[in-house]
């Protein structure tokens, strides 16, 4: 990202983090998918027994889970409409090629690695079980 930075406001940032909460059709199914990307369930409702209707996913290997990748899942009350989502997610990988190979080996459909001008170190596309687009990009000096 950030090459054309505006002058940051002085003082403490009023927001520590932004975490997306996406509606999914089946939380267990989504958890299984996101485990393949290194996520694990940090919290859920209910915590034990019964199907989950909410879950917090985090990266257990992150030095500090609060500043790593986080995502919330909630079972939607309405039908999920793949193809008409109004959000997508950028995931910044420590090793783009390795994570793509791991996903391929697990039978996940992934796109080819592209090298657009805004991400010369590469990115590829995949989607989760509810059709949310995940763009997986190589982490670098100017990305998370």
């Amino acid at each position, binding site marked *: 990202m950030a090459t054309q930075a505006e002058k940051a406001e002085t003082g403490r940032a009023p927001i520590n983090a932004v975490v997306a909460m996406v509606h999914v059709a089946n939380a267990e199914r989504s958890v299984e998918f996101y485990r393949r990307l290194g996520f694990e369930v940090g919290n859920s409702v209910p915590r034990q027994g019964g199907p989950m209707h909410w879950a917090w996913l985090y990266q257990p290997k992150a030095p500090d889970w609060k500043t790593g990748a986080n995502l919330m899942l909630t079972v939607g009350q309405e039908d999920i409409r793949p193809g008409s*989502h109004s959000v997508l997610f950028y995931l910044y990988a420590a090793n783009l090629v390795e994570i793509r190979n791991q996903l391929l080996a697990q039978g996940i459909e992934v796109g080819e690695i592209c090298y657009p001008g805004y991400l010369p170190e590469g990115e590829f596309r995949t989607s989760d079980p509810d059709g949310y687009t995940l763009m997986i990009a190589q982490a670098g000096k100017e990305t998370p």
Partner: protein
Amino acid sequence: MAESGEALSGSAPLAGLVPMIYASDVQRSIEFYRHLGFAVNNKVEDKGTLTWAWLQNGKASLMLARSARPMNSGAQDFMLYMYSPDVAQYRAELEAKGIKVGPMQYPFYSPRGEFRIEDPDGFTLFVSHAD
């Protein structure tokens, strides 16, 4: 969050996850998110129209992308949670700036309070307390 699990050895495969939300007017959304404390770190224009922007608020990141189709504010399939060090003060500041903020609520998972706002495209933002 959370009851965290034991950290495993090795490095995390992902260093971050940043939502990129569609906006009908990126400039209009930038102005809104400025009120929330976000600054533009990077942006892309096409023939004088902003098509993409990276917003930063401390360690919190968000991308905006111009939508090629009409937005349907009643059919959003996600929401964004924002974590503030002082949720009551932040709410008061937003209200003073003329942002329409919801009442403070105290659900079990957010005992020090959270409130709701909507961005210009109708996306739901919840502001809760950090820690």
